[in-house]
Structure formats: C-alpha cells, structure tokens
C-alpha cells in the first residue's frame, strides 16, 4: 500500500509552471532520493507533500488522507509527516531538549516526564544525548541538523521529508548527518530526500527520482539508473555532478 501518493500534481507560481503533472507513489519503508538541477521543482514537490505549498491541480495523499494547505489539515498531517530543512530551523531561544520536547507536549499533550524520556531517546539515537541542555547556537551545523532530525522523530512520523539537509553544512560535517539518515533507513522509516549526495542515493536509497523542468524525467533503482541513465538530460546531469 502506498504511503505517499501524488497524482497529476500541477503547481504554478503566478505564470511560472513549476510542477507539470507529477505522478509519484511511495511505499512505506522506501528511501526515495529526488535529484535534479536547481529550479527543477524538487523542493517545491517536497513542500507540497507536507502542505507548506499550495498546489493547483491534481491530488496528494499521505497515508490515505488528502493533503491541503488548510491549517487544520496541515496540523493533522504533521502527525505523520516530519520535515527537515536545509537551514535546520531550530528554535534558538530554547535548549536542545526543549526543542525536541515542544511538539510532543503541546501537540500530542504528553506529560513533561514522558516527553523528556522520548526526547532523550531521540537525542541518543542521533548521538547527542549529552547536549540536552545546550542551546542550538553552541552546536556545530552538523549537530544542529541532527537535533532537527531528533525533533522530527519525536513526533514519530511515518515519513520524513529532507530538503537538502546537508547543503548548508561544511563538507566534514556532512558524514555525521548522513550516518544518522542511514541508520533511520535501516530501521525502516520512510525517507523522501531532495539531495545532491549521489553516493548516499546509490548506497542507501531504494529509488532515485530524477526531476527535470517540473516533471519526473526518469526514475528507478539507484544503481541501475545512476550507472546507466536512459535520458540525455540525466546523463548530462550526472556528468555535471560527478
């Protein structure tokens, strides 16, 4: 059964046609890497899946429920979809622990003690248990991104969307974040990532989706598609990133 389903999704920014009829079906446990040039609509696609962006035509369902940008819908959606951003977007006025505990206490109405147990477990999972009382600004970019992952995991989402989450990091910090993702993938969480990390897409991903000019241009098994691209556009793209 599909966890995320997009059917003929069209999205316009004014006159600009960003997504031109996207069909995509993602099953539970899949690790889907979306690749493509900047401006090809990758991030927009991701932001449509969790209701941050409005789409004009077609339909998106997550776990069988339709996605809209209605506030109340988006909040229900947040229970099953987690999102990690390029710029982390941690709350700078709260400690790491408070960042992770916030949504479980306010949205899920968990008790402080219960939320703290979850938060500590999630921080442990991303290897930052000892940073519980630190403020985000004291952490490196890689650590901040791992806190952001812990914050999303604390809501036990069914699918985690990652929007170029290593792009803002110094090269030596990319590995620690990818390692956490790899661990999550092994545990069977569904991941949809917009990424430039081709090695990760190949070694960890279960599918690669190549987007070009607002369309899904080519998709398939990572090893096959990346070593033997069918379309000229993907060949060209591979040439450019490698």
């Amino acid at each position, binding site marked *: 059964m599909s966890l995320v389903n997009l059917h003929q999704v069209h999205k316009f920014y004014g006159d600009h046609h960003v997504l031109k009829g996207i069909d995509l079906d993602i099953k539970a446990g899949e690790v889907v890497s979306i690749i493509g040039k900047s401006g090809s609509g990758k991030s927009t696609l991701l932001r449509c899946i969790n209701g941050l962006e409005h789409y004009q035509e077609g339909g998106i369902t997550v776990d069988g429920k339709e996605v809209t940008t209605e506030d109340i819908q988006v909040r229900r959606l947040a229970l099953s979809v987690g999102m990690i951003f390029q710029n982390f977007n941690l*709350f700078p006025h709260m400690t790491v622990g408070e960042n992770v505990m916030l949504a479980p206490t306010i*949205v899920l109405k968990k008790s402080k003690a219960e939320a703290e147990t979850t938060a500590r477990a999630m921080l442990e999972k991303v290897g930052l248990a000892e940073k519980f009382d630190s403020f985000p600004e004291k952490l490196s970019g890689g650590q901040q991104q791992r806190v952001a992952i812990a914050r999303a995991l604390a809501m036990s989402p069914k699918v985690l969307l990652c929007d170029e989450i290593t792009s803002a990091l110094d090269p030596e910090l990319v590995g620690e974040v990818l390692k956490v993702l790899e661990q999550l993938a092994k545990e069977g969480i569904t991941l949809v990532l917009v990424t430039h990390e081709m090695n990760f897409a190949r070694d960890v991903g279960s599918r690669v989706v190549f987007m070009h000019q607002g369309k899904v241009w080519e998709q398939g098994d990572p090893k096959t598609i990346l070593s033997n691209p069918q379309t000229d556009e993907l060949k060209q793209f591979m040439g450019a990133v490698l």
Partner: protein
Amino acid sequence: MIEFSNYDILRNLMFATQWTILLSLAAFIGGTTVALTLTAMRLTRNPTMQRIVKIYVELFQGTPLLMQMFLCFFGLSMLGYEISAWGAAILSLTFFTSAFLVEIWRGCIDTLPKGQWEASRCIGLSFLQTLRFIILPQAIRVATAPTVGFSVQVIKGTALASVIGFVELTKVGTMLNNATFEPFKVFTLVALIYFILCYPLSLYSKHLEKKFNVSR
C-alpha cells in the same frame, strides 16, 4: 507682583514634572495595549484586519501629533463629547504611540526567519501556539531596545499637551516665564528636566541593544 525665587521656579517645575511623567506612563501603557491588539490583528493574515491596521498606522503617523490633540480636544467637544485636556492628551498620545509601536514591532517580527514559522507548522503547532511559544519570545527580545528607545519620543511628545491647556512641565515653564520674564533660565531648566528624564532611557535602550547583539 509676586517675586519668584530660583527655589520657587524649581519647586513648581518639579511639581509639573510629576504630571509629565504620569502622562508619559499613561500614554505608554495605553499605546502598548492598543499596539498589542493591532499587532495581533496584523498577524492573523486576514486582509480586512490588516487593512484596518494599515489605515490606522498611516493616519496617525501621517498627521502631526498636535493636530491629533486639537481634534481630540476641540473636535470631540464640538461633537458634544466633553473631554478634559488630560483625557484628550492621553487619547491622542495613545494613538500616536500605538501607531509607531505597531510598525516597530512589525519590523521585529519580520526579522525572524520564515523558517521559524515553517518549522513550527511542520511539527504541528497551531498559529496561536507558534506565536506564543516561538515567535513572541524571540520578537520580544528584539523589540525591547527600540521600544524603550521610542518611549523617549513619547515623553517629548507630552510637551504638546501644554497647547491644549494641560498643566505639565512645558505649560508650567511657559507660565513661569510669563511671571518672571526670565525665559533663558526657565526654559533651560525645563529642557534640563526633559533631558534628565530621557537620557537614562536612551542609555538603557543602547545597553539592551548591545546585550542583545552579543547574545546573538
């Protein structure tokens, strides 16, 4: 004719200063309250609400405070609402203060990255929860310094209330000058008192600004 000693002048000015402080406080509290309401209206993203706030701000920022005071004082009484000079002064200063504070606060809220709203939305917080737990705690830190800085404008603005006959520092200064014919002495003292009221606030505002910048 009564002779005024320096002591008399100072004593009268000090007495009047109380009213200047009281008027400033009232205007500041009134202005803050109205500005909070307007800020909330602005943040709802409801077009009608935002329009009302915009018109309000443009109206009271785009006209002289003195005219607003005249309208509150003379205008309202011509319409049949009896209003004291004190009431008219508070009312117009409240309009004035709130119109500027709304804009100052808007700037502060807008400096917060859009990602803060998006991240909140993605973990399931409602609009009000986002405001309360994420936006306001950060915006208040940014807003404190310029708000304290603006209170200096409010204090100086109260001087205009002398024109509608409210007896505060400037009014008493004018009266003393009429009685003593020593404008230089009297108005220097008046100016000095305003300075003593305002300068610590300016300093405090600068201090807050520095403190905020360091902790960023």
